[in-house]
């Protein structure tokens, strides 16, 4: 459960997050909003790359902001980035080891990496170099990295951007397995409303730093405010 209280982020004159209060508790929840609404910024606050000007964030009751970014990773926070960040000259397995090195005990690393590869069906590609991967495979590697070392909270920034419908469907099935099999909560950003609708039980809509709506996805998407501001319907 992520409890956000009066969160403010300020970059010079811009306030990408403006006094946001929200509690997100579904196993897989969505985060949507227009471009520049502050979605990535919120993820950056959660992972510690941006220090908020004010406010509180608690995950499962623990004060998140008190933790150093590395501490957050150690305690189970995982994230992917809006532009994929696979290391070109490491193999797929190497990319996973790069995180396993720091969050899994030495004797269990190989097993943890293998399990993550199995989860995302990447075992066959384990020895491919990062640079030879296509976008879908890269997104899968990013997802696999989030599964290593007992994750508690997985943050995904547009994990399906650029994927075809079939590919997003595959990805969705994998993401949906995460809470059950790994016990981690997932929060994901995407602009594909259908994808959000089909996988998130709860959705938070941001609009220029403020909360526009929060609740069960169907309700949220049906709300007139959201239809107007985000979907452009009248």
């Amino acid at each position, binding site marked *: 459960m992520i409890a956000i209280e009066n969160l403010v982020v300020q970059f010079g004159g811009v306030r990408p997050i403006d006094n946001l209060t929200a509690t997100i508790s579904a196993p897989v929840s969505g985060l949507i*909003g227009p471009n520049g609404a502050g979605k990535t910024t919120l993820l950056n606050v959660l992972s510690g790359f941006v220090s908020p000007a004010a406010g509180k964030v608690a995950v499962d009751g623990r004060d998140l902001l008190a933790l150093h970014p590395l501490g957050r990773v150690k305690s189970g926070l995982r994230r992917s980035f809006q532009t994929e960040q696979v290391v070109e000259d490491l193999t797929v397995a190497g990319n996973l080891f790069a995180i396993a090195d720091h969050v899994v005990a030495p004797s269990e690393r190989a097993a943890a990496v293998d399990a993550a590869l199995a989860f995302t069906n990447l075992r066959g590609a384990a020895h491919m170099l990062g640079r030879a991967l296509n976008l879908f495979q890269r997104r899968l590697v990013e997802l696999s990295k989030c599964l290593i070392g007992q994750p508690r909270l997985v943050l995904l920034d547009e994990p399906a951007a650029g994927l075809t*419908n*079939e590919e997003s469907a595959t990805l969705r099935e994998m993401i949906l397995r995460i809470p059950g099999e790994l016990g981690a909560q997932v929060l994901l950003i995407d602009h594909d409303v259908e994808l959000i609708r089909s996988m998130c039980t709860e959705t938070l809509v941001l609009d220029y730093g403020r909360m526009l709506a929060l609740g069960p996805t169907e309700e949220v998407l049906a709300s007139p405010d959201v239809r107007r501001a985000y979907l452009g319907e009248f």
Partner: protein
Amino acid sequence: MAARSILVDNLTVARGGKRVIHSVSFAVAPGRISTLLGANGAGKSSTVMAMAGAVPTDGGKVRLGEETLTGLPSDRIRRHGVALVPEGHRVLGQLSVEDNLLVAALDPSAAARKSGLDRVYEIFPELAERRRQQASDLSGGQKQMVAMGQAFIARPDFMIVDELSLGLAPTVVRRLAEALTLAAGQGIGVLLIEQFANLALDLAQHAMVLERGRLVYDGPSATLRENPEILHGAYLAQ
């Protein structure tokens, strides 16, 4: 200007020493929207990057009417009227939003620059608010708007857009779709790469499907919409 088409003739492209496009031929006609579909890794980006001179070709030709584009540097191709919006919202991060747009304006006259800017800001009012902001500080979607704006302001004869909706909110995608339809109406040829096949097929009159670097369909988009199995086959083949 006589309505010329871009003719891609037996194009072959290698990336990292491996052939990823095998003798692909097609045409992009002026005044209409064409779309190039295919699974990830099928070679869509490689095809259009080669057309724009941003990656070297390994064989074949790209022509614009009578002129040969293959072998020209990418800035020359742009000046021939073929504007590419590359994948992955790339912008000139150290420049302001407005400078990003102005640098892409090919007509140097002050009036043309002004009207070009106005037009882009009309499509993306978000950018007008941030015209002085450094582009690296934009959100992902805002960068994509800048990239699209850079194509619009060049007043090209052809626009090639790689991953149109990538990272854009539905409202913005809708605005863009309208802008592209308008552009096609004014005689501009558009080649669209788009992950949402439905959106692409709705917009386009003409469609092509790439499968592992080979063209497996080239025809009206309506046919493809009615026979989704062609597309599914291509997507699953990967």
